């Protein structure tokens, strides 16, 4: 057995909501699934959100059950902190190389007690809080991470050994190395998700430079019940903000950035965050500067109507630049469209840039069995109108934001459809007619 390649019906790459749902939809039909996630926890973007539009369900509360169902499913094996490094077709099946990155912790022995984290003296900005909070060089990624395994960041480790002394199960292994393994599967689902536009993509918006100009994910963490500050404060000085503005399409619908498309979720997450902000800061003034409000999903138009009714200001305006005053208050220079259109400057306490979505993986660079990307960079779906989950390669399917910006519900339906495509493909494979 030692050298036998593990074999599965379907390999699912990416454990965001699309990958989780596709895995469950397959496993519940009796298919054996291997789910691979490059981050140390499953859950993708969604587990990192505060609440979700349009239901305002707490994201943790509705994502963790899916994550737990996957983790406990007898038909699903999960590999976290592991990356797909090449996919080839061999004798009608797929062979994948997975790189298991070193956690420097023995996963079989770690009990997630956090003793190492307590002991470690090194503080590092926490990527899970998008820099707003801190973590240690060794840590459990976040409270409801799955799996609950510690992970050591060698770039910030002084090799002082305090963590190993604190660990009750002796599971820290400073000598662990990345390891490549080969697996085999009949079909593949790519659910590699999305990234966000870089904060400094439009330098004149001040992102990454001005302390009180935030990314939408930082805003999510301000609003999350378990977020870095535990409440809404501005990063420059911890003041409770009184005036907050959103700049829409900051990174989408902009040919100069190479992102001509609409990112589909930013209008809605801005409206959602604005509502949540006004819930926790009832006296605050909240403004959304936009071109078009794209509330096209089920119940979304009514959601935006509620936001307006709560007193959120929707202002049709073009934002030219964001600077700051001596007190780090962001100053937004804009041209209103409703009024005479004269340029004006408005000072806020906090500004959020509604960044757009970029592809989470490059199929060519990462050598995904010849799967192609479309000109927009997301995976191509050449049979889109009728079979949106098919990629340019038979047997490889795609779900969620891997094929373009999408919200959670659209990612979930697409995951179901990718799962069914995979099932159909496997059956034809079994009958010898792929």
């Amino acid at each position, binding site marked *: 057995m030692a050298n036998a390649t593990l074999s599965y019906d379907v390999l699912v790459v990416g454990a965001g909501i699309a990958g989780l749902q596709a895995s469950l939809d397959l496993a*519940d*039909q*009796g298919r054996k699934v291997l789910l691979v996630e490059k981050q140390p926890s499953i859950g993708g973007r969604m587990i990192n959100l505060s609440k*979700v539009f349009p*239901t305002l369900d*707490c994201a943790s*509360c*509705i994502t963790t*059950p899916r994550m*737990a169902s996957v983790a*406990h499913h007898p038909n699903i094996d999960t590999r976290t902190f592991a990356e797909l490094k090449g996919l080839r077709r061999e004798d009608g099946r797929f062979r994948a190389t997975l790189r298991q990155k070193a956690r420097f912790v023995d996963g079989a022995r770690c009990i997630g007690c956090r003793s190492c984290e307590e002991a470690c003296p090194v503080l590092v900005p926490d990527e899970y809080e998008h820099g707003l909070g801190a973590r240690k060089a060794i840590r459990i990624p976040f*409270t*409801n991470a*799955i*799996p*609950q395994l510690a992970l050591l960041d060698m770039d910030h480790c002084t090799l002082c050994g305090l963590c190993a002394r604190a660990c009750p199960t002796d599971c820290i292994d400073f000598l662990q190395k990345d390891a490549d393994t080969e697996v085999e599967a009949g079909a593949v689902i790519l659910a590699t998700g999305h990234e966000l536009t870089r904060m400094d993509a439009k330098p004149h918006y001040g992102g990454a430079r001005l302390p009180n100009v935030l990314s939408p994910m930082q805003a999510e963490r301000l609003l999350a*019940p*378990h977020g870095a500050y*535990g409440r809404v404060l501005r990063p420059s000085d911890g003041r409770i903000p009184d005036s907050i503005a959103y700049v829409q399409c900051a990174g989408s*619908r902009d040919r100069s950035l190479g992102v*001509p*498309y*609409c990112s589909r979720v930013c209008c809605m997450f801005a409206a959602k965050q604005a509502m949540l902000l006004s819930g926790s800061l009832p006296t605050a003034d909240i403004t959304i500067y936009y071109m*078009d409000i*794209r509330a*096209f*999903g*089920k119940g*979304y*138009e009514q959601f935006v*109507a509620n936001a307006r009714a709560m007193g959120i200001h929707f202002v049709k305006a073009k934002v030219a630049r964001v600077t700051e005053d001596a007190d780090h208050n962001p100053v937004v220079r804009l041209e209103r*469209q*409703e*009024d*005479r*259109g004269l340029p004006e400057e408005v000072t806020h306490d906090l500004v959020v840039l509604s960044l757009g979505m970029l592809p989470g993986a490059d199929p060519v660079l990462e050598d995904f069995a010849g799967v192609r990307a*479309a000109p927009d960079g*997301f995976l191509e779906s050449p049979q*889109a*109108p*009728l*079979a*949106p989950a098919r990629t340019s390669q038979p047997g490889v399917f795609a779900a969620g934001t891997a094929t*373009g910006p999408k919200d*959670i*519900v*659209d990612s*979930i*339906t*697409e*995951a*179901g*459809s*990718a*799962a*069914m*495509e995979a*099932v*159909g493909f496997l*059956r034809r494979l079994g009958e010898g007619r792929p």
Partner: protein
Amino acid sequence: MNGTGRPGDNQLGESTGDVRVGVYVCHCGGNISDVVDVKALAGLMAEYPHVAVAKEYPFMCSDPGQEIILEDIRANRVNRVVVASCSPTLHETTFRRALQRGGLNPYLYEHVNIREQVSWVHKDDHAAATRKALALVRAGVEKATRLDPLEALRVKAERRVAVIGGGPAGMSAALALAGAGLPVDLFEKGPALGGRLLEMGRVFPTGEEATALARRLAEDVAAQGSIRVHLGGEITRVDGYVGNFEVRVEEGGSQARVKAGALVLATGFDHYLPGAGEFGSGDAARVATLPEFQKALGSLPAGKVLRWRGREIRHLAFLHCVGSRQAEGLNPPQADGKVNDYCSRVCCTAALHAASQVLDRFPGTQVYDCHKDIRTYGRGHEAYYEDAAKKGALFFRYAEDALPEYLPASGLLPARLKFRDVLTWMEEVEVPADLLVLATGVVPRAIKGLVESLKLPVGADRFLQEAHPKLRPVEVANNGIFLAGTCQAPMTLDEACAAAGAAAAKAAQLLSQAEISLDPFVVELKAERCTGCGKCLEECSYSGALKLVDRPLAGLGATPPGPEGLSAAVIAVNEALCKGCGACVAVCEPRALELAGWHLDQFEAMAGAIAAS
């Protein structure tokens, strides 16, 4: 079908000795603990009778949270579990499964909601919120001590799916199911498969002919031996329940009955039809709906200017959001008294797709586009917007607080659309329109018969209502019924096909085993107490769940005769049809009916605990 576990008689007295309740109070991040004093709550509960352990934790639903419970089952011999957290709709099953993994019967679990019912609604009084939470958790423990182990119900399932509606979503669902090895009956009431595709021109974003796409799908369906297509038949009714539906259809003058284990609804949408005179509609030469225009566009010969019904169209105006995004007080209500307040999702892109075709083929026609917002959100959609703008379409944005007004042609003046334009600083403009195209929205197709016979949930927008708008978009509250495509919400073609795949996935999961298991919270009969009065029958809204049957002969069921020895009838319960609503329990005077898992004495004990707090 097996019976449920044995409740009723097995009361506290019998099991008191070893009832060991574990109480777990969740912080829900800070959702609960910011308001409720969770430490004090757990501390107080630890002292409560029958409570073996009481703990608090940031996220009980997380893996480490569940692990705490499993550990207590192992190490502290906990045999009843109470979790005080969010709403049971979120996590009741999560924790039941955890109990199961820990080797306990999953029904020895009680969920107490201290988030929606406490912390979210009593934000301003922390002390009172904590007291209320305490009362509720105590009630939960009282119930937990009286719980009995139950077994899930098992129903045999017909391994076959009925797909209703033969448009692209219905065909895609059928193909996906057949691909997974499930036989399918596909019902289309029209004469051919294809649905709305049969009456469309070219589709965005690929520009393919809709009819060609329909043909491709129909050929794939025909090639699948396991799909039986029923054309031209009206479905008269659907009976039954999960695993055992029966579809009745009029086919060629006779009634056919088809059995199915699951149903996929793909009944699609209707185009919104403008009311008489709404934005000039009725004047067919000068005002068209977008679907009419789209369909005709393909066959109009290219030329300098567009010609429509014999007239030269130099000025062509599109008006967005007709029949969608309506506001109360502004738009006249629809037949049911409500306005269509939703966005129809597809009309912006469809309108700009048409606009860009016109600009390509009729360079002499000036195009005007009057909108509230342009919602070309999808992959490839924005390109039509950019293209139309580049080729000279003029864009106006009408103020949302007033409806644009249609001014008919008079004398030398062409017909015009009058409104205040946001983009020119609220100036009043009159846009000339030799032809006005109304970008009409999407409304659900009327399927009253199906809704009534299946008791389908319908939303305020009249579309079928999914089980959870975020996480369960293709399921409905009714077991075994799934939604594909625009019967649930407006969608583009690719979105409808994706939803069809998702609906097929749910149906395939359901039927992947020969038996379906259902929650055991159904009504139980103590036959010896039933007088056969039949009052419960009147209360029950689920036809077939209860029925009067002849009392089995003594010896067979060993049932003694009724109290008076007069009644010959007794109630029988069909557990698969019973929804466990309990309406019958309330009217049964001799207390012959009880709801498994929700006994009256459990309620009494809960009420007692709350009153005592």
